[in-house]
């Protein structure tokens, strides 16, 4: 049976023309090191929280660069702050500290 009717199409495109990249600059003033990430996935492979759901610290790093703050804030809640990501990163990124910062973003933007 074919179903007819309307369907809401969610736009998955990253619109870099509209993305808020000012926050990236603000983040760069607050924290250093995260710019070095090369997306190798070591953090996601070892992450305590990633094993249990869809949380993915590497992807969060990438969303930051694309100014996708809503998604960053939603994701960061899942981090358990265990710090394993830090041990394995070849570019010496303190992902745990980033997540801590993004958890604050959550409380500020969604009271």
């Amino acid at each position, binding site marked *: 049976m074919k179903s007819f009717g309307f369907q809401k199409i969610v736009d998955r495109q990253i619109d870099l023309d509209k993305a808020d990249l000012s926050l990236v600059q603000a983040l760069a003033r607050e924290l250093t090191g995260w710019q*070095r990430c090369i997306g*190798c996935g*070591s953090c*996601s492979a070892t*992450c305590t929280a*990633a094993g249990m759901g869809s949380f*993915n610290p*590497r992807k969060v790093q990438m969303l930051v660069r694309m100014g996708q703050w809503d998604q960053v804030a939603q994701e960061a809640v899942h981090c358990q702050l265990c710090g394993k990501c830090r041990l394995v990163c070849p570019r*010496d990124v303190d992902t745990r500290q980033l997540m801590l910062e993004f958890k604050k973003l959550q409380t500020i933007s969604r009271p």
Partner: protein
Amino acid sequence: MDGKHIVIVGAGPAGLAASSVLPRLGYRVTMIDRSNTLGGHLSKWYQLFPDRAAATVLLEQLTDEVPDSVSTMLGREVTGGSVSSGAVELTLDHGEHLSANGLIMATGFDLFDARRKEEYGYGIYDNVFTQAEIEEMFRQGQIETRHHRKPRSIAFLHCVGSRDLKAGVAYCSKVCCVTGVKQAIELRELLPDAAIYNFYMDLRMFGRGFEELYQQAQERYNIRFVRGRISEAAESSDGSVIIKAEDTLTSRPLKLTVDMLVLLTGMQPAAGSLELAAKLGLVLGDDSFLKPYGLTQQTFKTSYPHVVLAGSCTGPTTLTEAILSGRSAAMALHESLFKLTN
């Protein structure tokens, strides 16, 4: 010609290439290597990328080109010395001294000690190997696990001790990507049914024929490329190795059990070369390799007109580059010695 004396430290591909040029220009040449064989690392390899040429054939060509007049000292290490205007004094490990008018540093590289990346278990787990050990197995014509079994699955890990700030190494070692692809293909030929994986962060296929080799590995040899760095390895009770990574292209964590894990270890400056450089007053880069005058031009020159650098003592090189730079460094030295006296 007045028969000026030139010492070449290192009889790897770069040193051999330099030593084939200088006697023909009238120089008296002494070539020293701490190993007992000629050829440096080339003497350890089996088939070369990208065309799988036999390493033994190249080594033979390089050594054949060295004139008989070159005095070769094997099993002798240069441990110290000094450079003054127009002269070089070198000290060898048995306390001997050598005086020369010119010096070519061709001390090459050492492989990164994989034990330093403890999370991969090299030296702890039985079935974790380096690519150098795989070359040796190819030379012996036998690929087997530490328990003398034919492996059914093998994973290569790229960038071990390269591009790793935790290991204190920022640079890329340049040849390990294509070596990993070459070895995967060679393994496939010996093990038609095995599962073969390459875990990489980036595949750097810069040379002529390299990208084509990668494409062949995908299409013709059924090598599985996974874009993700292995975060850790563990040993299971049967001696196989369990690895964890993220498949970053599907954004999912990944677990895999393999019979062999092969670490593609990077290049670092040869042992003792830092101390030797300090004694001779040669400058090191941030990467600890010897630093030439320029990185585009004058890549053989040092601040001394009569001391030049050749091959991988200045950073990761292919054989092609090591051989070319050996010849070029010899010519650069000839030019500056000629200028000094004329």
